[in-house]
């Protein structure tokens, strides 16, 4: 027979003010199973807690009901208190006598009556609870970072500096991501290579970091602390141990391929290094365009290679490792504006370029060695029009959201153009200028003072007349139509999630919002975590942002990972679902409904009526189950029950309220 102790609290006058605590105590003594009732002025105070502890030990109480404030406030306190007593911390029920009783009802008699009911419910429930113990989950002290851009690299560095092993999986042939493509970075105008390449080499040489370039995640299974990830290292056809990165092969390779890194404004060879400062600074053979691999002719690079590092028979390598935590730093790409904006020529006019193409033009290692020459005829454009929010803030044609960073980098582009073409004229068509960071607005003001002509309005049409690009727009401040004859137009296009993010996220059961960005656990309070425990986000994978914000998030994600990997084992939430295998039909309705994928259907052997039977039953993974209970209702047979809120305890709680 259970020995229930009821500890009611005055909470000073908060409860006692409108609830006759003694009368409730009297009623409590008459409840079945209750052996000891005590009232206390401040139960949560140290003397109060001591009193409770002694009473429990003295009276041999094995279940506790506390009648204080809301469980959201002090449930952890009572749990810690019970941890020092022989009573299991989960043999506890809290009756909310303050926030939902004394504070909200004026009439003392009615409030007392309600308090009695609440205590009755709590006693009925605690009588049916069973002791719960959290299980331990091992934590593998290794982290996986997907994506080698600035966010991925910063995360990896922070984790590695904390002494944990990190693997970076980068899809491209080198680290650097989008940042390394840029020329200068706002607001300080330091050259992007100068601050990005040192980080890349730091990552490349860090003892705790293994870089897997030209690789992708093949498959993943497992849960927090124990992610089994298979990584496919695509064939590079070059033996990196032998290759010294001398680049002889690149000079001799006959086939010409559009250079994605240079945004299609120049050509590269089939065997190529993305850019001079690439890390790993060794080339890769692009199988699709290599004549040797496609038609079996050529083989020049093998002949020329001083160390014989070329190996045409190379294959993809699959490696599987276990990681404790995973960070998504998969970055972004620019929206493909051509099909969306035929009015800007839809790609017909080569001189209508994107922001990244402009970055390559103005970049010293770019196709034009830093001289701003327009792609059509390599002439220096004397008048440039920059159009902002192309695809952003445009629900009809593009994306509804603002891509955050373009206001700053369009001001930067204008500044760079006016800097490099002193006699040039630069027009910027904008809707709003949003420059909220430190030193941001001052940067924008400098650009305006440099002579950039900011016209508030959208460009409705661009057409070619002669060798000029006529931009028809409006200036809403003077409410006049404006037509600018430009030599070159730069479209600051919207940021959208990187290619292939859908399949990747699906593999990890990470949610994606309507626009395809990875969904954080809570927009304000948990921006770098996801709903899947052990998986974190950093950088533009979670949404459009600029480099400073990405680096901040990288640090945050790293700190979360470090916090997780510091633990040798994880305490799992004990209030999780439990399967009664005798009742389980194995139809998997619970597995479908579980938002955390915590339930799996496994074949198990049972002895039934002296016969051995193997049949499918559900199995709950304590690491993933968050205790929402959706599976308990889906399971018609009632095989699935949620510990802490069992069917029986809720039923009796309902009965207790209805005078049963």
């Amino acid at each position: 027979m259970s020995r229930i102790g009821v500890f009611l609290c005055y909470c000073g006058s908060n409860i006692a003010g409108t609830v006759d605590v003694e009368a409730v105590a009297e009623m409590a003594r008459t409840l079945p199973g209750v052996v000891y009732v005590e009232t206390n002025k401040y139960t949560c105070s140290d003397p109060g807690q001591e009193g409770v502890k002694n009473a429990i030990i003295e009276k041999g109480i094995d279940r506790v009901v506390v009648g204080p404030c809301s469980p959201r406030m002090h449930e952890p306190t009572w749990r810690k208190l019970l941890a020092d007593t022989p009573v299991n911390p989960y043999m506890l029920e809290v009756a909310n006598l303050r926030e939902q009783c004394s504070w909200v009802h004026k009439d003392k008699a009615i409030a007392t009556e309600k308090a009695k009911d609440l205590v009755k419910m709590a006693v009925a429930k605690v009588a049916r609870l069973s002791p719960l113990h959290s299980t331990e989950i091992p934590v593998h002290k290794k982290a996986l970072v997907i994506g080698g851009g600035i966010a991925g690299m910063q995360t990896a560095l922070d984790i590695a500096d904390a002494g944990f092993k990190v693997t970076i999986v980068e899809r491209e042939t080198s680290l650097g991501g989008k940042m390394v493509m840029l020329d200068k970075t706002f607001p300080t105008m330091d050259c992007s290579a100068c601050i990005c390449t040192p980080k890349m080499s730091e990552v490349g040489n860090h003892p705790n970091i293994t870089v897997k370039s030209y690789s992708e995640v093949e498959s993943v299974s497992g849960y927090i602390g124990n992610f089994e990830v298979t990584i496919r290292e695509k064939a590079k056809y070059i033996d990196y141990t032998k290759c010294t990165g001398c680049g002889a092969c690149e000079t001799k390779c006959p086939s010409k391929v559009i250079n994605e890194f240079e945004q299609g404004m120049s050509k590269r060879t089939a065997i190529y290094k993305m850019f001079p400062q690439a890390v790993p600074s060794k080339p890769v053979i692009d199988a699709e365009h290599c004549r040797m691999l496609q038609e079996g002719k050529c083989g020049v690079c093998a002949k020329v290679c001083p160390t014989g590092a070329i190996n045409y028979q190379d294959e993809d390598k699959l490696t599987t490792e276990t990681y404790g935590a995973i960070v998504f730093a998969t970055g972004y790409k620019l929206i493909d504006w051509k099909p969306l904006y035929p009015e800007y020529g839809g790609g017909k006019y080569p001189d209508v370029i994107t922001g990244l193409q402009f970055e390559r033009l103005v970049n010293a290692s770019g196709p034009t060695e830093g001289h701003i020459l327009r792609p059509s005829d390599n002439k220096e454009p004397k008048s440039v029009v920059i159009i902002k929010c192309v695809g952003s803030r445009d629900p009809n044609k593009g994306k509804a959201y603002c891509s955050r960073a373009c206001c700053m980098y369009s001001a930067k582009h204008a500044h760079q153009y006016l800097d490099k073409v002193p006699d040039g004229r630069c027009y910027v068509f904008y809707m709003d200028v949003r420059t909220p960071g430190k030193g941001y607005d001052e940067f924008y003001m400098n650009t305006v003072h440099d002579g950039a002509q900011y016209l508030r309005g959208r460009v409705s049409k661009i057409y070619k007349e002669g060798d000029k690009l006529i931009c028809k727009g409006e200036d809403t401040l003077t409410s006049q139509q404006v037509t600018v004859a430009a030599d070159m137009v730069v479209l600051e296009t919207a940021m959208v999630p990187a290619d292939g993010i859908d399949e990747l996220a699906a593999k990890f059961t990470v949610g994606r919002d309507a626009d395809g960005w990875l969904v954080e656990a809570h927009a304000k309070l948990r921006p770098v975590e996801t709903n899947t425990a052990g998986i974190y986000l950093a950088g533009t994978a979670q949404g459009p942002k600029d480099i400073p914000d990405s680096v901040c998030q990288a640090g945050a994600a790293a700190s979360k990972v470090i916090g997780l990997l510091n633990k040798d084992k994880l305490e799992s939430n004990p209030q999780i679902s439990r399967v009664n295998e005798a009742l389980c039909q194995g139809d998997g309705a619970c597995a479908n409904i579980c938002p955390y994928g915590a339930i799996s259907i496994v074949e198990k052997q049972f002895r039934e009526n002296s016969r051995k039977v193997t049949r499918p039953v559900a199995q709950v993974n304590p690491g993933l189950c968050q205790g929402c209970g959706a599976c308990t209702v889906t399971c018609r047979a009632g095989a699935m029950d949620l510990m802490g809120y069992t069917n029986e305890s809720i039923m009796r709680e309902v009965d207790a309220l209805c005078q049963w």
Partner: protein
Amino acid sequence: MMKYANFPGCSANTTGKSFTISTNYVAKKIGCEFVDIPDWNCCGTSAAALTSPELAVALPARSLAIAEQKLPGLDVVAACAGCYKSLRTSLVYARKSAENLEQVRELIDMPYEATTDVISLLEAFSAPEAREAIAAKVVKKLRCLKVACYYGCAMVRPVEVCDFDDPEDPQSMDELMALIGAEPVDWAFKTECCGAAQQMAVPKEARPMIERIFQNAWANGADCIVTSCPLCMLNLDMREAEINKARIAAGKEPFDIPCYYFTELIGLAFGGQASELGIDIHFHPAEQLLQKRAQDAIELEKAEAAARAEEERRQAELAERIARKKAEKAAKEAAAAKEGADVGKEDAR
């Protein structure tokens, strides 16, 4: 067999007279029959829309209802872009929901199912069957005539209503012009508005809209502008002189860019005379260009013929030289063979 219910519109026999004449000419030639909708009424264009939305829907709906009963199964063709826009807008409104259809029925107080479709004349003539017929009937290709195809805005926008060709860069008229041998020019103002009614309302502000169109066409090397809407024709053709006067005053060079209906040029290609097609009653003199280009075409043909002749001659000469060399070689071999034979004989002796 191409048969359509025709919605003439108010401009058919007035400002758009030559459009109707040339259309009938072409239709007769390619065996396409247009049956006028009996007792059709004005489509209301922008005026009705300004007065009340119900009127803008009801006016066109009445004609469509009559077409539905009297000419069942025939699509309605509206030559003028203005009529086409109004009819389409009313049709799309009625088809949107049962309530709308019910409301329209009440307005026009006639049975109406909104089943007959509405297409523009350009769409009718772009149908594959029509294009084959046109190609077959072409007698005289309008060579070296550079045309700027001007669709105007009502023909292609808004997409939800018109749903015909590409709203930004339509090609159907360009293809027809290429079919009859003309050279369509790639220019940027295909679908730029000509100012329509604003030319009457606010002439001072609206005139530059027309000038821009001429300017872009001229800049891209077009000889003339081809259109399929009487209102655009009116604004371009009739007001070119006025714009030229203003340009001369401003010290700019006047334009000499005549405007045609696309059916007029097709008629020409069928061998029709300018007078038969109504080209003679344009505001801006339109015939000299045609004659000049006809001359150019003839010289071009002559030049081409000459070039072809030249080419044949060269080929013949080349063939002949090869033949001669081959003959010499044969002769040399024969000679060599003979000597061999003599040598053989000497050995034999």
